[in-house]
């Protein structure tokens, strides 16, 4: 029954911009100050105060627009979205309505069955409201530090067909805005917010079903869960003979259900009209060109390049590009390798995905704040590839790199950790071991082949782990099996 239906989902994503000051006044956007400290007559909505546009907001909007293949409108205007709310100081939000600054873009998402293109209808600039705090005994409290902080709203086409696709789309947006450095991408803290428009229809039909809007999707998990829930709720309702009503729903993350927040009759009439206090935004070709030149390589393209250029598995490439500075760190290490082979690249990837990422997650820092010079990892991998040290030794000296401020080569020299690869020396050691353990040699030759490991470990023990295990194995084989 469920398979007879197809979900049609569109997402509205709000991202809070990392501009230093608010969208229409010069108040700081820094968090962590006391309530209502980052305010002025403009963002408090005092009588007579007027907004003035922060140009970097437009810069960020164009950046995201270009990164998502949008058309950029040479001239766009602001509008007022009117509604009353205690934390909305002016009684309207400055936004864009007709003719937003960016339109007609798209981005690719990765699915098990391949890539899929999700259209972007529009991206527009708006300002954030303040915060109402209801959970106090006496009253509702209002904090206007957030009032006037710049947002971009990204509206997708109804191209999304499942909760998983919605999840991937949102992840992709998050990665892109973080790569562009325009948003910190934190869903839990509200710097990235998501509402979903959801409807279902019988497979093979063209006409969209009645949609509901689901709000309060404040984590990636909740986005997936809420959409999944709402799709199933709609299918079950239709199957049991009911009809979908165009409500605004709220996701309740504690009981995992969507609940009606507003009925259509109570929907706001926002009475949009052009904002008369601001002049329009003109975007010149030169401005766009400047921004285009500064655009970084985007995560998906970078992943593809990592696969092709470095021969990395898809999995590795995905993890390395997920956070931009980890990818940067990887490229930095790779550029410092003496031996540029796919074997080395894969080793670098392994080291980053295990040892380095473990430390980063322990310290909760991005790779950009990791103090270990990229040269050290490159040297370590070079030493491994040239068989100068064993991976066992490499793992042992890694923690010392972090504490000693010495390079791997220095540590290897200082502590005499270089691997013994001298065949003559190893041969004589092997012969000694075999003659000292003649009983076991007999047993081995009688068929107890698992004793081979014993001989290897004896040789390694003799050399404090420095004998090249590959050579030890070769010589042991020769000595035991040919005599």
């Amino acid at each position, binding site marked *: 029954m469920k398979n007879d239906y197809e979900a049609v989902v569109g997402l509205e994503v709000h991202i809070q911009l990392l501009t230093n000051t608010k969208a229409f006044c010069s108040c700081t956007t820094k968090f962590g100050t006391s309530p209502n400290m980052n305010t002025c*007559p403009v963002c*408090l*909505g*005092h*009588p*007579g*105060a*007027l*907004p*003035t*546009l922060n140009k970097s907001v437009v810069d960020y909007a164009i950046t995201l627009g270009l990164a998502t293949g949008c058309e950029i409108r040479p001239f766009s205007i602001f509008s*007022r979205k*009117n509604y*009353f709310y*205690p934390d909305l*100081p*002016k*009684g*309207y939000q400055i936004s864009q309505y007709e003719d937003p600054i960016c339109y007609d873009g798209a981005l690719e998402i990765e699915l098990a069955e391949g890539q899929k293109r999700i259209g972007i209808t529009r991206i527009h600039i708006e300002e954030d409201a303040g915060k109402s705090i209801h959970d106090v005994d006496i*009253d*509702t409290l*209002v904090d206007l530090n957030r009032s006037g902080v710049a947002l971009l709203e990204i509206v997708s086409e109804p191209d999304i067909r499942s909760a998983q696709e919605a999840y991937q789309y949102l992840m992709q947006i998050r990665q892109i805005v973080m790569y562009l450095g325009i948003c910190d991408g934190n869903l839990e803290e509200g710097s990235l917010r998501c509402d979903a428009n959801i409807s279902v229809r019988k497979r093979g039909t063209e006409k969209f079903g009645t949609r509901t809007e689901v709000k309060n999707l404040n984590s990636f998990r909740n986005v997936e869960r809420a959409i999944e829930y709402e799709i199933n709720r709609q299918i079950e309702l239709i199957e049991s003979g009911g009809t979908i009503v165009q409500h605004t729903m709220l996701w309740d993350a504690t009981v995992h259900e969507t609940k009606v927040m507003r009925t259509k009759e109570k929907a706001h*009439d926002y*009475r*949009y*009209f052009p904002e*008369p*206090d*601001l*002049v329009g935004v003109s975007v010149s070709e030169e401005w766009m060109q400047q921004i285009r030149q500064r655009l970084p390589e985007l995560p998906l393209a970078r992943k593809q390049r990592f696969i092709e250029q470095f021969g990395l598995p898809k999995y590795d490439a995905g993890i390395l590009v997920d956070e931009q500075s980890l990818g940067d760190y990887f490229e930095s290490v790779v550029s410092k390798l003496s031996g540029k082979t796919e074997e080395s690249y894969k080793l670098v990837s392994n080291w980053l995905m295990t040892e380095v990422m473990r430390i980063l997650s322990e310290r909760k820092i991005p790779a950009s704040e990791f103090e270990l010079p990229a040269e050290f990892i490159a040297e370590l991998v070079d030493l491994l590839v040239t068989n100068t040290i064993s991976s066992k030794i490499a793992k042992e000296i890694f923690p010392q790199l972090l504490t000693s401020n010495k390079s791997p080569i220095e540590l290897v020299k200082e502590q005499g950790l270089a691997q013994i690869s001298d065949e003559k020396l190893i041969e004589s050691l092997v012969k000694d071991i075999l003659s000292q353990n003649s009983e076991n040699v007999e047993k081995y030759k009688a068929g107890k082949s698992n004793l081979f490991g014993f001989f290897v470990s004896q040789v390694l023990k003799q050399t404090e782990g420095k004998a090249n295990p590959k050579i030890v194995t070769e010589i042991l084989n020769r000595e035991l099996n040919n005599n």
Partner: protein
Amino acid sequence: MISYSTFRIAAQNGTITTTDSTRQVVSEIEKQKHLNAFLTVCESEALAQAATSDKHFATGSPRLLEGMVIALKDNISTKGIRTTCASKMLENFVPVYNATVVDRMNAHGGIIVGKTNLDEFAMGSSNENSAFGAVEHPLGDNLVPGGSSGGSTVAVAAGLVHVALGSDTGGSVRQPAALCGVVGFKPTYGRISRYGLVAFASSLDQIGILASDVSTTARFFDAISGIDERDSTTAELPATQSLAMIEQPLLRSFTVAVLPDSELAGCDADVLKVYYSRLEILRQNGATIIPAEIPGSTAWIPTYYILATAEASSNLARFDGVRYGFRATVGDDDEDAMIVRSRTQGFGAEVKRRIMLGTYVLSSGYYDAYYRKAQKARRLVLNGYNDVFTKADILFLPTTPTPAFKRGEKTADPVAMYLSDYFTVSANLAGIPAISIPAGTSSEGLPIGMQLQAKSFDDERLLYFAHHFYQLFN
């Protein structure tokens, strides 16, 4: 009260001090209290400013407005001084910042003696809509002084101040100026910063100047005009230099456009008499009179009231009792109910009427029929004016259809009241500069004003013509 130019010479000569003149003004305001022109008198602040002015005069370095006594319409934000907009909503509201014009006049040595009465939030044409009582016409007789800048106009007309600031959204400076017999100037939109002017209709609002002569108007305009980075709608132009310009002799020939006679049909006979006689004077002094055709003049008032109320409905949304201003008693119900109660009790009837009108014309399903259509009509007005000013220096027309009317005469009929703005709203729709100058009196001795309009950013030339016409008429 002596004119500012006379005062300035006397102060420079040391025969008068700003402190004395300010004291005198404060006591005169007290004597004329029955006019109800002032809502707040700031004596101590004014005297402190006056002491500074005296020093400047004593050292021979008077600034452009040194010692000039100024009143501000009480919808212009003054730091630390109550700014009420003549509304119960802001009865006790004390701003935390100065409007740009206040900073500029302070920097030029002006002395603010008080804040004047107005129609609540500048909505009205008779100053009967103030929460703190109507303003009296200086001639008494139960006449209205006009509005909405009634208090500022009366302060000038009664000789209480040298100059007063008003705001002109559809004629609120020019109409009372005409009714009270003073000069009322609305500059080009964007020539004076609106930062700190409590918005009624942002795309139409412009701070305007009231004074007893054009020269004081020009001096004051030069001091406060020019680009302001806090108001993005100000034009990228420096302050004006009109004071020097107005003294140049009148051109031997110039072109004056006039409306077709049919447009003047609604005017009072006395107004027409003054109008035609003054036009004859202009003709005798070198004016070529040409007809002006501005299409759709019957749509001016509806267009204006749609756009102005639409913007007002949004501009006044911030008065919700949450952060400042009047708050109704908090009940057991939610914040929404508190907001509704505060607005119901805090706003007067005319303000509520306009908020409802504006909300209606913006609401979904009606936007295209009203707001969008009005925007188109506005563009037609602008185009019409552009056409007129390719041929003429000045458009000459009455400021109001009638002289001052009686209190209560039009309060029952809002549309009749709105029609008293018939000749003034189009300048706001087009954003062009316009000025009303005293031009004569009615058979009953009531002042009658005539209006001059010019093309956008031709403010200095407009003041120049106004200065000469004023002398020709009086």
